[in-house]
């Protein structure tokens, strides 16, 4: 029974994780630093000058410029941290996934993987156990990051119509991007032989995924050559979809169609990457 095999193996990994809660701390530090430092201090709207060419701008003008800037480039968010939080949740999720592969490499190095491979269980269940264990860990740190964003002083301001349903929507979006990337990172972890390679590949993918996307900063300000990769990056779609819900709460018809488009894109991404991951992992787990 592949499902019970997957559950048993996922349970083993999560049991170890729960018993060692300190492992979650680095991820939470990252969240606090990014949200507090970037979200509050590096707020681009703070940079609007009060004097231009000898003319002093009245507060109403500054405020108008600020508002125009936020509407035009930051998806109508009331401030930068509200724009940023979706990106930071994505960042924390991806960091967790990128390094989650270490456990899988360790299982190979310590011989535990061979113990599984001599047992009459399907190779797919070994792969999916790897995917689920890292997915659950990533989603937990993602959720905590979102909560940190809400409770920080001058933190995230949720849109007026934000409901439990919107929260559910945010997590479906993050769940999809996390599962898709998790399938990829897990397949990589099963394919490499050393922790060094797993970490190197994780780092190598982490930065383009996050920075070549609209997660941290609007891609409209990117140079042209970066715009296209940022556009197709599934992290951009996830950040955009989650942000629509966070900023607006209730979506207008046009916003809803953007949201649905992003969701469809993510679904296709998850499906393709999971099939590819399964293929790669099964090859990596086959005897040589």
């Amino acid at each position, binding site marked *: 029974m592949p499902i019970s095999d997957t559950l*048993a*193996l996922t349970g083993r990994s999560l*049991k170890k994780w729960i018993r060692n809660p300190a492992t979650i701390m680095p991820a939470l530090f990252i969240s606090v630093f990014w949200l507090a430092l970037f979200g509050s201090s590096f707020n681009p709207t703070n940079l609007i000058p009060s004097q231009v060419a000898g003319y002093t701008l009245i507060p109403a003008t500054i405020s108008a410029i600020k508002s125009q800037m936020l509407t035009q480039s930051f998806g109508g968010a009331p401030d930068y941290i509200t724009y940023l939080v979706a990106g930071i949740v994505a960042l924390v999720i991806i960091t967790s996934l990128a390094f989650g592969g270490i456990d899988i490499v360790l299982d190979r190095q310590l*011989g535990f993987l061979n113990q599984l491979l*001599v*047992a*009459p269980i399907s190779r797919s269940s070994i792969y999916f156990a790897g995917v689920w264990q890292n997915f659950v860990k990533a989603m937990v740190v993602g959720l905590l990051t979102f909560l940190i964003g809400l409770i920080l002083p001058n933190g995230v301001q949720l849109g007026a119509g934000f409901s439990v349903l919107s929260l559910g929507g945010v997590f479906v979006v993050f769940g999809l991007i996390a599962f898709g990337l998790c399938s990829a990172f897990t397949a990589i972890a099963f394919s490499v032989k050393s922790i060094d390679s797993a970490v190197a590949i994780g780092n190598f993918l982490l930065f383009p995924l996050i920075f070549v996307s609209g997660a941290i900063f609007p891609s409209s300000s990117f140079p042209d050559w970066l715009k296209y990769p940022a556009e197709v990056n599934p992290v951009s779609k996830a950040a955009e979809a989650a942000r629509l819900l966070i900023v607006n709460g209730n979506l207008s018809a046009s916003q809803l169609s953007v949201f649905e488009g992003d969701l469809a894109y993510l679904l296709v991404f998850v499906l393709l990457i999971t099939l590819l991951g399964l293929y790669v992992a099964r090859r990596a787990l086959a005897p040589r």
Partner: protein
Amino acid sequence: MVLRLSGNRHRLRHRFFTLGAKPLPNKMYSVTRGQKTPSDQIIEVQSLTKKYGQTTVVDAITFGVGHGEIFSLLGPNGAGKTTTIKMLTTLALITSGKATVAGFDVAENPAAVRGCIGLVPQELTADNELNGMENLRLIAKIYHLPDDQARARSQEMLSLVDLESSSDKKVGTYSGGMRRRLQLAMGLIHSPKILFLDEPTLGLDIQTRSKLHEYIQRLNREQGLTIFMTTHYLEEAETLSDKIIIIDEGKVKETGSPSELKERRGSQILTLEVSDGSRDLTGFLQGVQDIAGVTTTVPGTYKMRVSKVENAIPLIVDEVTKRGLKIVDLSLTKPSLDQVFLEITGHSLRDSEGSTSQQRPQMPPESKK
């Protein structure tokens, strides 16, 4: 599918030789594609070869393991022992040749083979963060034991390896010997037909080693479990095994029971002491066909290697009596398996342990082939 015909006790007959000592619990029939082929061998290996790129690690080895046997694959590090186990346990692909385990072709039906075997690998794979019981329960789940059975079986295995009192302690706190014992329990949890042990006592102290030997013998004796083990400890192979295969550089060098190997290869050491040391017997002794390597350190005391004791001793006794001397002492020392190994492979087992081992004293040159 395996058909077990109970009550059909019979004696073992091997391809290489007849052991005849151990009665078998069951006769096994393997059924493949509708054909029923009676098989006395639970593992059959023919010209099994493994190549990694251009390097041949296992070179056309052939052997068979009977039901309920303890079988040892003996050889120095790098001889191909672990690779052979990996092929038989479906962890490595077979380059050429054929292997059948519990009636199933390893290459064609690896999933069925996995259901019949247990593996205790060289590495300690138990999870440090989980306790002994949790580790066993996890493996039981992977082998699809129902919950109640998994609990009972885990308990049973823990008591078998004397770990009941530590079952709720994290494995990280276990000693090396305890971890080895837990590992053995993990390999047995699903009641396999064949247990593969890869260097089961590597790096263990003497007490723990003999304790493990005891478990292995008990499992074999009481449950008729077939045990396939690799080792580079000669004493271990000698104490435990019904059959030994010596491999070196991927090739089979010798097959037989420990005593057969010694008889076939190892000449015995004969010490003779006569009453009058002034009359030298060296010339005579050197002339006897079955005697070689005569040395004398004290006048009247001779040491020699004898291949056929039954021929040599009457000749010696006759000659000594003819010369009017008396025999003060005549003793035979059986060769150790180490000497046998040396004769077979041309190097001592410990010489080949390579860079990891400290320098060991070399064997005397005259005993080299």
